[in-house]
């Protein structure tokens, strides 16, 4: 394989007709270039969309109550009901494979009135009553201080973690927020931490939230045993989409809702949405591969064609070499290696050009700032190795027919004097 003479010969053959070699190589180069760029573009789109999901635990559903639509057990339809804090334990007992169940209560919301006061400043923010687990489902980076813990829950401490957005609104630039008190609907809470969220889903909104212990929230704002809504995450091995029916059934039973009432318990299955997006990108990727490989294929056919011509041109030479005693297999190997070499080299050039283009787009994106739904297009090392493997195989295929025809040349016919 790594025989100096063989390599010299390959180089000699491919350089005798430089322009022909270059044009042939261009076909393969173009094909792999298209493949790489398409895959990178798909990846860029995927990155852009997934950015919106951030690092939210995607195996998650959100569940809330609505008015019933059927009467049941003597209760009328149109009845409102609310989840209770006991429901959480009931879910833990009845549904296996749930990782986190976070009951939540909420103040404020879109277009709400100013509800938070610090010193002379006020602002309208979403205020959540939460358990410490929420940080695993709605990830955020704690930038100073700490997040909620179970002591806060047990002792109903009036403490709050505020978003960077809140801090920027209410505090002076260099002012220390930790240890200060903010007034939420007239109740003082001590700021014990600040956070920053990575997902751009809510955009600025995500940074303007305030988290307080669930128990203190219930007490301070008169929620009693009620739970506004729940965020439920399944264990990694199982999907929330499969568990959600069971979860909803448990809730219906506990709140005397007709088993066939599909409207009473509302939910949003993030996992299903995520999967839909995932499969969309799967399809995109498949299209990229198909288009790329089709274009590559025409390049490969070009290589095969040229190799056939090379063999034809070298009929006499092959005849001489066989007369001198070269083994047929050795001739076949020579043709195959020429073909693989040509395909690989031109493919690598294509990969390099593709990478340059991707690099260019990336630096363009960096300079103009983030673009909607498109972010850092890239191809992984895996894709590149995959592409090289495809090239290797296609070089082999391209060389196969010519190599076969080369050893079919009988020396006597090749040497016949014209």
């Amino acid at each position, binding site marked *: 394989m790594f025989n100096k003479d063989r390599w010299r010969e390959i180089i000699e053959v491919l350089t005798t007709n430089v322009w022909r070699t270059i044009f042939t190589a261009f076909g393969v180069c173009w094909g792999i270039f298209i493949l790489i760029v398409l895959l990178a573009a798909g990846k860029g789109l995927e990155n852009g969309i997934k950015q919106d999901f951030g690092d939210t635990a995607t195996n998650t559903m959100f569940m809330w109550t609505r008015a019933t639509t059927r009467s049941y057990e003597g209760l009328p339809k149109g009845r409102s009901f609310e989840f209770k804090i006991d429901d959480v334990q009931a879910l833990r007992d009845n549904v296996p494979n749930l990782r986190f169940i976070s009951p939540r209560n909420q103040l404020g919301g879109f277009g709400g009135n100013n509800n938070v006061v610090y010193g002379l400043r006020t602002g309208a923010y979403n205020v959540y009553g939460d358990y410490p687990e929420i940080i695993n489902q709605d990830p955020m980076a704690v930038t100073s201080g700490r997040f909620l813990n179970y002591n806060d829950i047990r002792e109903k401490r009036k403490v709050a973690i505020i978003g960077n957005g809140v801090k920027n609104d209410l505090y002076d630039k260099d002012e220390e927020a930790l240890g200060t008190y903010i007034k939420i609907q007239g109740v003082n809470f001590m700021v014990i931490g600040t956070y920053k969220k990575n997902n751009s889903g809510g955009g600025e909104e995500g940074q303007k939230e305030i988290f307080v212990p669930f128990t203190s929230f219930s007490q301070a704002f008169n929620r009693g045993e009620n739970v506004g809504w729940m965020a439920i995450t399944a264990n990694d091995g199982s999907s929330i989409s499969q568990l959600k029916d069971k979860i909803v059934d448990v809730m219906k039973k506990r709140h005397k809702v007709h088993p066939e009432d599909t409207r009473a318990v509302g939910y949003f299955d993030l996992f299903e949405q995520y999967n839909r997006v995932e499969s969309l990108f799967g399809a995109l990727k498949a299209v990229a591969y198909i288009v790329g490989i089709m274009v590559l294929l025409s390049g490969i056919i070009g290589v095969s064609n040229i190799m056939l011509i090379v063999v034809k041109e070298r009929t*006499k*030479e092959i005849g001489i070499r066989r007369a*001198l*005693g070269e*083994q047929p297999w*050795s001739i076949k190997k020579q043709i195959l290696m020429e073909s693989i070499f040509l395909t690989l080299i031109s493919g690598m050039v294509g990969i390099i050009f593709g990478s340059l283009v991707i690099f260019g787009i990336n630096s363009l994106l960096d300079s103009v700032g983030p673009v909607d739904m498109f972010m850092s297009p890239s191809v992984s090392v895996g894709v590149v190795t995959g592409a090289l493997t495809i090239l290797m195989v296609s070089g082999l295929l391209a060389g196969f027919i010519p190599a076969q025809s080369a050893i079919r040349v009988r*020396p006597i016919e090749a*040497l016949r004097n014209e």
Partner: protein
Amino acid sequence: MIEIKDLHKSYKMGTNSLHVLKGINFKVEDGELVAIMGSSGSGKSTLLNILGMLDGADSGEYTLDGVPIKNLSETKAAQYRNKFLGFIFQSFNLINYKSAAENVALPLYYQKVPRKERQEKAMQYLERVGLKPWADHLPSELSGGQKQRVAIARAMAAEPKVLLADEPTGALDSKTSYEVMDLIQKINDEGNTILVVTHEEDIAHMCKRIVHLKDGVIVEDKKVEQVRAEQYV
């Protein structure tokens, strides 16, 4: 060295079959220099191709140095050609993108002789045909006579048992023809067996034995007084 018995060969041309060799019997001893003569179409090239294992016979026996040559696979044939035979062609058949030395080294490459040894041997044989200073030249930079001498060096390089020359002087003027024949005679003097196919009387008489072919049979097989080519050079 070579022994053939009742050799037949015919070519199919559509529905007709052309019977080219119609029962050839002959024997070549070690160290002979044989000219095979005949007009065109007499079957002399076909005979040489069969002797050279480039083509198979329809029937008959062929033994080369005690080895029966029959029903060879392409791989085996290539091996035997490499080991037993050296070819010299009318049109030289050098590989035109390889230098003279590389051309000479080619049969050794197929024998998997190490590179260094190959180069040494190639130089040695080029020296014997008087072309050492041209070792790095491409065939296109050599004259016809020089090309044929490179081809002879190449045929010799693998140290074959028999040299087969198909009209070695066919493409050369008479002066260079004699030079080439002089070289062939000298190689023969060293004890090598050589078969020369030719249709030129003077070239044939520079051999030691002339076999006349006509219409696929041997019509004459005689020993002749060898004319040395040296005197014309």
